[in-house]
């Protein structure tokens, strides 16, 4: 080496330590990330890795050598990991070499993790050590305080940026034998899903366990509070300006109104009396190519605020519906929904929650995998994947096969374990219907819409490859991937067929359990497929709902009510709208009096609606479960579980249209035993076949036949449901005369 050797780069660090070095791009965002990581990490880390003392959060912001050095000795003592020590030492050396800033950054990253991980353990010791570096101390203190506030806020602002920054960091951090804790910091950057999944893993005494817990709601409500605080500031400022400007309305957004009026001449902000010409103003807006994003955002916030406290905050003379209309159209333009869908989804929730829902749809849900218990155990799989460099964790208490993947240096869908069929990439919400159905070993189970096979293989695994699973999918092309998954995961008891679901039970019936994961509009998985926002119209919903109603009736008829171990049907959709969920379930309850709703067995989830916008449903619908992305951090989902009982004799005065009655009689396929009650009428009818016709209108003296007329069949004025004895000719004559 030449002059100033100490400034030159030293030997490359051994592989273990080298991984900790974050990319420069990441470093640029370090502070924000770190703060967030601090906010998100604490409880979880404490719980899981309570005994992992780590470098002091001191150097969180400290880029100085002294900070490092201060941190180091302390870190050395409790730390069981030589690795970390060595790394810190190396970092010190590196500092000397002049790459000081990067070391500092590095430490910061590490510190972020560590701080998060074992906060409670180190609070006191941290403070003790801080004496040496007052700057760091202060900064840290501030950082600590601001963690909570900054965290969620930053989450909102830096969403996309953070995601980008996450990428370069990943490969560096996630290799070798890093402990989970060390790996976890990579998830520092708070995307919506990250934050919620972090918090979701924390153990909270929440009824809604799983990916979402109280923390997430807290974070979100904090976010809303922060937003409200900002709005309040803005409002105050605008109010002042309004007064200055002599605006007469004295409303909050007076200034905004002025601005709007000046700019667009519409002042469509709600708090001012300018919403009225909304239609015109909105048209003007549209003509101008739509309002700019900030205006829309502000307007939305204002609307939400006002609608939250309408009596006090609303402008005089403006109806609530105007505000709502404005808000809905703003939501549509801001988030990219068509008007119909924006309104439909908005009406499902209270105002503030609706915004949360729309926000949650912008952010992807965490990637989850399901362990294939036929081939491996969750623990072994987790270990194997961690060795490959995947950062993962069990999902929650409600499942013992689910794993949540935070980040991965290898493609999670192409690892040798995946190819060997040890796990399946599956959304967490898709575990729910199978858990609700809980098929037992040796049963005969039907999955009516099974592609690509996640739920089918789950069921086969639960049944331990005994019994039979019929996996059906109407789309023949999709049965390919279904079969491939079935074989890959080693399910040996599956029969794959390709029928329209409505053909069951004609093809085969008598199933112990049936799962109907009906084709739906997909409003629950908008975060996965944004095209749903624009391509769903009213017609789609009515078509889908019709199809779902037909399918659920067929599914009910395919269940064997006398099954010793079963007799259950689970209906599920990945949608949050009422006309695909509660309406269909209610329809089934009305049309099939022999079915009843039972508890799904899922401990979390919101109960289904028992009434919605004027439509009332059976009370039992509160047994069904709804899942939302903004509450549970899983795709929007709906699960309903039915128990199918024996069908009693179908009564004629069904008060339904004729076809329904006929169908009931025809599809009485669940029991192959003779039904004496039903047979009696036919036997009696046959016996009277040769008697002379009592009416004898035609005077021919023809023979009578007992005809049972389903209600509504004949257009003539025959009383519904009566059994008439007429000769066929008399029948014609009578109807002709009537």
């Amino acid at each position, binding site marked *: 080496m030449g002059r100033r050797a100490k400034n030159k780069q030293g030997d490359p660090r051994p592989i273990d330590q080298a991984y900790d070095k974050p990319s420069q791009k990441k470093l640029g965002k370090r502070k924000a990330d770190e703060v967030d990581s601090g906010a998100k990490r604490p409880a979880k880390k404490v719980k899981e890795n309570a005994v992992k003392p780590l470098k002091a959060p001191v150097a969180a912001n400290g880029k100085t050598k002294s900070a490092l050095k201060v941190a180091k000795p302390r870190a050395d003592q409790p730390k069981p990991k030589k690795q970390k020590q060595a790394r810190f030492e190396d970092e010190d050396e590196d500092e000397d070499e002049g790459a000081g800033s990067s070391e500092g950054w590095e430490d910061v990253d590490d510190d972020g993790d560590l701080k998060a991980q074992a906060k409670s353990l180190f609070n006191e010791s941290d403070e003790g050590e801080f004496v040496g570096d007052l700057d760091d101390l202060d900064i840290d203190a501030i950082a600590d305080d601001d963690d909570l506030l900054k965290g969620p806020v930053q989450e909102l602002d830096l969403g996309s940026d953070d995601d980008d920054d996450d990428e370069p960091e990943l490969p560096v951090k996630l290799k070798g034998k890093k402990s989970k804790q060390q790996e976890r910091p990579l998830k520092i950057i708070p995307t919506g899903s990250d934050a919620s999944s972090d918090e979701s893993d924390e153990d909270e005494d929440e009824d809604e366990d799983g990916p979402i817990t109280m923390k997430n709601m807290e974070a979100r409500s904090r976010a809303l509070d922060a937003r409200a605080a900002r709005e309040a500031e803005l409002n105050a400022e605008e109010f002042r300006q309004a007064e200055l400007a002599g605006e007469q309305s004295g409303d909050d957004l007076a200034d905004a109104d002025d601005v709007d009026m000046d700019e667009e001449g519409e002042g469509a902000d709600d708090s001012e009396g300018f919403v009225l010409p909304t239609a015109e103003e909105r048209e003007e807006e549209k003509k101008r190519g739509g309002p700019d994003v900030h205006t829309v955002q502000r307007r939305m916030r204002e609307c939400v605020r006002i609608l939250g406290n309408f009596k006090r905050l609303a402008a005089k003379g403006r109806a609530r519906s105007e505000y709502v209309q404005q808000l809905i159209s703003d939501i549509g333009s801001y988030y990219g929904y068509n008007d119909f869908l924006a309104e439909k989804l908005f009406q499902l929730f209270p105002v503030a929650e609706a915004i949360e829902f729309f926000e949650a749809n912008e952010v992807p849900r965490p990637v989850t995998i399901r362990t294939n218990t036929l081939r491996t155990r969750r623990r072994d799989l987790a270990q194997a994947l961690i060795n490959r460099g995947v950062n993962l964790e069990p999902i929650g208490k409600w499942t013992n096969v689910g794993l949540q993947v935070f980040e991965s240096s290898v493609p999670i869908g192409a690892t040798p374990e995946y*190819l060997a069929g040890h796990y399946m990439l599956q959304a967490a919400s898709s575990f729910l219907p199978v858990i609700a159905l809980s098929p037992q070993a040796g049963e005969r189970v039907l999955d009516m819409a099974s592609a690509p096979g996640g739920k089918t293989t789950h069921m086969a695994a639960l049944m331990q490859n005994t019994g039979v699973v019929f996996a059906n999918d109407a789309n023949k092309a999709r049965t390919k991937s279904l079969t491939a998954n079935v074989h890959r995961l080693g399910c040996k008891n599956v029969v794959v067929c390709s029928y329209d679901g409505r053909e069951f039970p004609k093809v085969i019936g008598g199933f112990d359990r049936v799962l109907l994961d009906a084709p739906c509009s997909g409003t629950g998985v908008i975060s996965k497929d944004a095209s749903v926002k624009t391509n769903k119209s009213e017609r789609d919903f009515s078509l889908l709902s019709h199809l779902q109603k037909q399918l659920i009736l067929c599914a009910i008829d395919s269940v064997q009510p006398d099954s010793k171990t079963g007799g259950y049907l689970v209906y599920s959709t990945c949608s949050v709208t009422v006309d695909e969920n509660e309406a269909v379930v209610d329809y089934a309850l009305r049309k099939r009096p022999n079915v009843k709703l039972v508890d799904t067995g899922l401990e979390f989830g919101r109960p289904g609606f028992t009434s919605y916008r004027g439509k009332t449903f059976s009370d039992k619908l509160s047994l069904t479960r709804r899942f939302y992305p903004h509450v549970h951090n899983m795709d929007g989902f709906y699960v309903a579980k039915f128990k199918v009982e024996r069908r009693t004799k179908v009564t004629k005065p069904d008060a339904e249209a004729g076809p329904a009655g006929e169908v009931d009689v025809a599809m009485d396929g669940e029991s192959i035993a003779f039904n004496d009650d039903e047979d009696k009428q036919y036997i009696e009818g046959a016996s009277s076949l040769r008697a002379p016709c009592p009416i004898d209108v035609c005077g021919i003296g023809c023979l009578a036949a007992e005809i049972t007329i389903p209600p509504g069949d004949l257009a003539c004025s025959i009383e519904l449901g009566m059994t008439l004895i007429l000769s066929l000719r008399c029948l014609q004559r009578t109807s002709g005369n009537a």
Partner: protein
Amino acid sequence: MRPLTEEESKTVFTKLANYIGKNLVHLIDRQDEPHCFRLQKDRVFYVSESSMRLAISVARPNLVSLGTCFGKFTKGGKFKLHITALDYLAQYAKYKVWIKPNGEMPFLYGNHVLKAHLGRITEDTPEHQGVVVFSMNDIPLGFGVTARSTVDTRKLDPTAIIVFHQADVGEYLRDEETLF
């Protein structure tokens, strides 16, 4: 779906015996539940008899798969074993080859197994013998045919092929379209 004819059965069993030898009887006469082979659209399926009886009610144009697909008959009448049969082959394999971690990925990409990747091999494996390939963790990765007997393998240099690749689990991704 129909049962296999004598000819077809012979072809299939010969092929299978190449990999599992005498253990073939375990497939044909099982203790727990009787299984059978069925043919549907040139594909051979191995399925339990109870499932098969239920599957009879599914019409031929609509039946896609039942139980486990072992392979298919080519147009020329030969029987090709598919990767989907790996589970049973691995269970009853007579001769096995273990490959080192650094050799896993090349094999999963469809390449042959080189001497350098060889971890372990069953003693006295003859030449041109059907073998099942495992990873060092005993995860079955595929199957193939030995190029040389075990004895000869020792003398080979590291770049020589020792197992010809016939099927590997990577095909679930690579050949998604053509697998079924």
